């Protein structure tokens, strides 16, 4: 049971990260292959604030969120200058550079990272794993609802326009830079918040946990589930996050699985499992329509 809770918390963290990535890569269509670096930044900010300055979880979480989002603004500003494939390799480079900084700058504790991040508490109650799960789920709900809200607003429509055709979007008077930067800020800030939760949950933060391959894992999850949709981000994070835990043999082949899934999805089902226009989504929708139609006919 307690093991299931641990897996559950891990999955909620994955969900937060893929939801954040979805704002940048899904809604705004900007390649972002360095999400793990921002996750790491959030984790380090929270861990350092908590261990060295004694800040409680409830304060270092917003601090991590804001600081990571600010660095995201910087990446957003960089993205304005680059064509998309060069933006992609810049984000890869950023991931490598950030991990190297975590590893080699003494302030971040070197290869051993930062240890003894305290458990959060609420009044006199100190967190156990189920409390982490509850907080994690609440955060996922909040981010998912916020994403759903975004989809319905002018902001979401503008991001979709930028994704479709940036030049056309600019031509109808949309300030493309502002919206792109905002998308990067939101997506990375979410990763920062996830990092804070992670730091307190694991109580240890090491550079190796935020390597580029983690960014590949996150991207695989999102592409697998369906880029640009909330349900896709959640499905990818849950299925690919749980699979190595449930099927022991999968964990040996974890990265092989992610790599193969990524290339198969991109090649044969670019919409992902549940994305707009994927066969599964089309099938489910037809089912629902048929049932709806029959229901009405019966009534």
């Amino acid at each position, binding site marked *: 049971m307690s093991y299931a809770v641990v897996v559950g918390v891990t999955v909620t963290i994955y969900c937060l990260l893929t939801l954040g990535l979805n704002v940048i890569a899904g809604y705004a269509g900007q390649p972002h292959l360095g999400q793990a670096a921002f996750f790491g930044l959030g984790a380090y900010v929270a861990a350092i604030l908590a261990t060295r300055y004694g800040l409680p979880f409830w304060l270092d979480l917003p601090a991590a969120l804001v600081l990571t989002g600010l660095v995201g603004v910087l990446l957003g500003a960089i993205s304005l200058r680059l064509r998309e494939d060069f933006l992609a*390799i810049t984000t890869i480079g950023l991931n490598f*550079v950030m991990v*190297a900084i975590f590893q080699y700058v003494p302030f971040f504790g070197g290869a051993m990272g930062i240890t003894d991040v305290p458990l959060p508490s609420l009044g006199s109650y100190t967190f156990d794993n189920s409390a982490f799960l509850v907080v994690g789920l609440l955060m996922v709900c909040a981010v998912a609802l916020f994403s759903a809200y975004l989809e319905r607003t002018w902001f979401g429509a503008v991001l979709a326009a930028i994704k479709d055709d940036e030049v056309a979007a600019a031509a109808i008077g949309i300030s493309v830079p502002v919206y792109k930067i905002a998308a990067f800020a939101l997506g990375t800030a979410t990763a920062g918040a996830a990092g804070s939760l992670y730091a307190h949950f694991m109580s240890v933060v090491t550079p190796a946990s935020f390597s580029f391959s983690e960014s590949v894992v996150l991207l695989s999850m999102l592409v697998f589930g369906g880029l640009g949709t909330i349900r896709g981000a959640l499905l990818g994070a849950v299925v690919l996050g749980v699979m190595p835990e449930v099927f022991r043999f999968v964990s040996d082949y974890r990265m092989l699985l992610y*790599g*193969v899934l990524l*290339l198969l999805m991109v090649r044969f089902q670019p919409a992902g499992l549940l994305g707009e226009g994927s066969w599964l989504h089309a099938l489910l929708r037809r089912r629902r329509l048929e049932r709806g139609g029959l229901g009405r006919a019966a009534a």
Partner: protein
Amino acid sequence: MLLANLVEGMTIGSLYALMALGLSLVYGILRVLDIANAGAYTLGAYVGVLTWRLTSSWWLALLAGAAVASGLGWLLQRHLYVPILASGPIVPLIASIGVFTALEEAYRLLFGPYILKLPARIPLPTVRIAGTVVSGVQLLVLMVAVAAFAGIALLLDRTRTGLAWRATAQDRETAEAMGIDVGAVTGRIFLLGYALAAAAGVLVAIHYNAVSPTMGDMPAYKMLAIIVLGGLGSPFGTVAASLLIGLVETFVAAYVGFLLPRDAIAFAALILILLLRPQGLFARGVAAR
């Protein structure tokens, strides 16, 4: 000491150039940043080790590695990259990251996570120039590299095949309208590019006497830095950038020591170059808007 570093820097730069040339040719023809090229580098090294164990012949190892890897390259372009080419540059890049990740895991599962040795002896004399020792392996690397660069330069500049390649790189549709078999051109470029990467892999395996599943990690992304530095798709620029990076890394390591690890330096440089001089140091091509 100075001369020794110069030779080692040139050797490493030549190896980088062998790897980066394939990537640069592929980018020129498809506008795809092909991370999986580094998978061919590792594949070449493993096939080289296996061939060497069977035959104890370094040149058979080199040929076998190049042959198997170019087969992989041909399959990848035929069944992966060309079919998804229409969906923009980012989709093939993501696919190639998937391929590379899967390949590295496959090597680890097939050959184990440890280092294999390739202690081939190169029948070349150790040369002394002004008191500096140039080992047989270094000499071999430099010779293979020079032969490859000269061959590619001749091929591109002097032959009808090269003309077709350049035409396809310039404008795929127009080239096709002029009767060039664009599909065949793409296929041949992948054959060549992956063979070059694999040759570099075998040479590195002999040079350091080590082959491991993750040996492609560093080249996979550092080659991106090199081809951007060289001005994308320009073979001359790519070779120049490779030699420059090889020399700078060697001299920094020898005289300055490390502030950050090598790869982080290359990436910090990559990001700065993309922001400040996106057309690359050596060419007038356009990488950014």
